[in-house]
């Protein structure tokens, strides 16, 4: 594992605004690890990004429903760990295929951008 030292020269975590397509990608990735409800998805993204990403519920749920509409994820109601009724999502086969495609596209994009930025 990479070193976990937490030196942070910034004073506070800046709020980073995610473009819509990127959020969809992150949700698909999170669900690729297993079925989760909306709260768990936002918590997981927050933790794994080292507290950089905080997805407000106002963006999260519309994104989830958009993905559900397009058949990339599917939902079912279940019981959560604190015995409450919660809506769980998991990835469909179409969703998995879309995830692979988008991940690939993202990596190509970011390396291209880095090359340009390193230019000067």
């Amino acid at each position: 594992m990479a070193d976990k030292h937490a030196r942070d020269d910034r004073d506070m975590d800046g709020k980073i605004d995610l473009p819509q397509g990127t959020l969809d990608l992150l949700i698909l990735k999170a669900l690729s690890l297993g079925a989760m409800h909306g709260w768990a998805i936002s918590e997981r993204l927050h933790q794994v990004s080292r507290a950089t990403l905080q997805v407000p519920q106002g963006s999260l749920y519309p994104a989830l429903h958009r993905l559900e509409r397009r058949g990339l994820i599917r939902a079912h109601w279940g019981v959560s760990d604190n015995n409450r009724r919660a809506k769980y999502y998991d990835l469909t086969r179409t969703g998995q295929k879309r995830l692979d495609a988008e991940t690939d596209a993202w990596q190509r994009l970011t390396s291209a951008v880095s090359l340009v930025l390193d230019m000067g």
Partner: protein
Amino acid sequence: MFSELWSDVRYRTRALFRRRSVERELDDELRFHIEREAEALARQVRYAARSLRRQPTFTLTVVLILGGGIGASSAVFTVVNGLLLSKLPVPHPEQLAVVGDPAAVHSAWTGSPETDYVSYPVFADIRDQNTVFTGVYANGYGDDWDISIDGTATFEQARTRCVSGGFFSVLQVPAYLGRTFTATEDAVPGQDPYVVISYDYWQRRFNGDRSVIGRIIRVNRVTLTIIGITPPWFTGDIVGESIDFWMPMMMAPLVRPNRKLVDNRLASWLVIMGRLKPGVTLEQARAQIAAIEARSIRDHISGRTLSQFEDDLRSTPIRVESGAAGFSSVRAHYGSVIRIAMAAVGLLVLIVCANVCSLMLARAAGRAREMTVRMALGAGRSRLVRQLLTESAVLAILAGAVGLAVAAAGGRLLLATAAAGHDPIVLDTTPDPRVFAFTAGVTLACLVLFGLAPALRATRIDVAAALRAHGRSLFGSGGRGRRGSVTRSLVLAQIALSTLLLMGSGLLVRSVQRLLHVDLGLDRDHMLVAHVAATRTKYAGPRLAALRRELVARASEVPGVEAASYSLDGLLSGGQSAGHVDVSGFVARADSERQVYYDEVGPGFFHALGARIVRGRDLEPRDADANTYAAAINQTMANAYFRDRDPIGQTVTMDSASFTIAAVVRDVQEDANMRAKPVRRLYFATFAPSDLPQSFELLIRVRGQPASFVEPVRRALATLDPTVPVDVEPLTARIRGAVAQDILITKVTLVFGGLALALAALGLYGVTAYSTEQRTAEFGLRTALGAEAGAIARMVVGESTRLAIAGVVIGIPLGVAAARLIQRQIFGVGVVDVPSLSVAIAVLVAASLVASYVPARRAAGVSPLDALRAE
């Protein structure tokens, strides 16, 4: 792509047909999310509470100090709210408008018409001619009448007001029991002998007996029937006073027959309140009412009185202001007290926050190890900051709750102290939403001031370096170096602010002393004054003159009395008379130059006062006869009218009575306002006996302590006629009463100054103690190298004192600047006053010595072995 499209269509179709269940599912999902969010927050709060519970002394100290600071500021604000901000508890107070000065509820003046308060005929014109009010009423003061209930023989007193018929209908106050006045009542003097009593008076005096309606109250032997009781929430339209009952204006002439209260256009004693019609602005109302009022006077008055009125009108135009906050003389009287108290308490809150901030910093430093480990285990910095902030928030909320509890009690205490000796100030001190909001705001501000900085600093660490180094010495918040400077500057700030407060209190204390000992031009420490309320008796004309002579004689016979005399207005009694005179050989350029204060006095007046007669002779018994018309003038009047001429033998004419000047006396201060400038005064022996009972005062000079003569004099006066109400007190008691407000301000600032000093000293102690602890190794080393215990102690004390002196040096210019702000309060001393400044500095240095004593001794006692072990 196609499959996504197909999926979208299927979803939307489903949603179309099962709309409601889809919406319900959305609701449930969101609700689940929000619940989890709330749970996470609760978990954070519980964790914060647990960590606070593990350090009970710290938590308790912070909550108490912070709660005290928040409580004190909320208490002062409660009073501010009740006195300055809150509205009358009547429907739609924003529609009410006051004509004149809202503070003039106890003013009365017979002479040229006033603009701040009016006479009844002028009010009647306003009532009948205005088109801006839906209703308007007048409110005038009630005297200390003799009240007898149900015809019993014993008299009592009550707080009363005379109001016109529209009082209850304009304010929209219904009757709790019985009924209130109708607007048509109160048209003819004596026709409607009714009173309405307040709920509080009903409970207090009548024990809530419902049969009180119809019972009789005799006021000055005039029979009035109780017709109704007001609701519990109504105590009148005067903020700070609680009225017992209201009497119709038209009954006033019967109750006070010697004053023409309702038909004399020149007898001003009423304040006016009206309810604006919808759509009428205050400015429109002001324009119309001012015109009506001016016309009402100009049409009926002429000559000198009119020109005096026109002068007044130019300098103080007729005001119409919002009446939402009601009338209040208390508000005007205590305005400056409140403002100074708020400033002082604001400073105290700053000191409290600085104090708590250094406590929090010290604690954060102590938990450096814990923070380091947690960060090494992967906790994000923001999470730690959030946790520390949550702890601060819990502390702040606890302190805020403590503060709110203190606020109500503190507000009551403040009011009780303010009113000590006078009529109680009646304000609703239960915290209302505005006080709550204020407290919450202060709490939040404190939270930011003392919570954020330590939280951010505590988490700004380089984990690896921290784990390597010694946990403690890296966070030396008391030691030398950059990190120590924050705590040191906090202590500096506390000491500077305390210096400010102490300097202010010192100036106020000296000012009060000066006020209490100001030279009044008479033998003030040996004077007794006796107020004889002859208006409550039947003495008039020659019998009144005889009464005066006899009372003076009886008083003079008391052993130890040097001299006695009488005057109508007395000394520092709150009442003065003024008039216009013509002086021979002096041409006045304006009417204001002709105005003098005057008093009718008895023989030997100046001798009784111990005043100094500069030229001429004292007034003698023969001057009391109508023939001599002798008068005395004071130095200010002599300088104004006679400059180089000799006033003796010259003539002064007032109201067609001509007096010959027989004496010039050194100025005697008779105004109850101790800061009043000298004015022109004229004294003459009573020249015409009054047809009506008239109150007067006896002035008695004694040998020895005046307080010990109060009883003997009272007994001696009672031997003449025990039914005559006489109130005897030393003049110094009146002086203290006149200065009461200043004494209050001084007490308040002294209390806050003392608290600030204690906190600053504690802060200094904390810093010194911590620094000493940090430098244990250094002290051990010094001892091992041969340093004396005394030298080490002196070093610690020296550093601590240097810090204190630095704080004082910063505080002094701040104190001077603040003193300039309260310059109006300060009397007789300059803004930079050496005695009070020296005392303030000495107190602070002494406090710093005390604060550093214990740590110094501990430092001196460090053995080299202990030092090594501590590492």
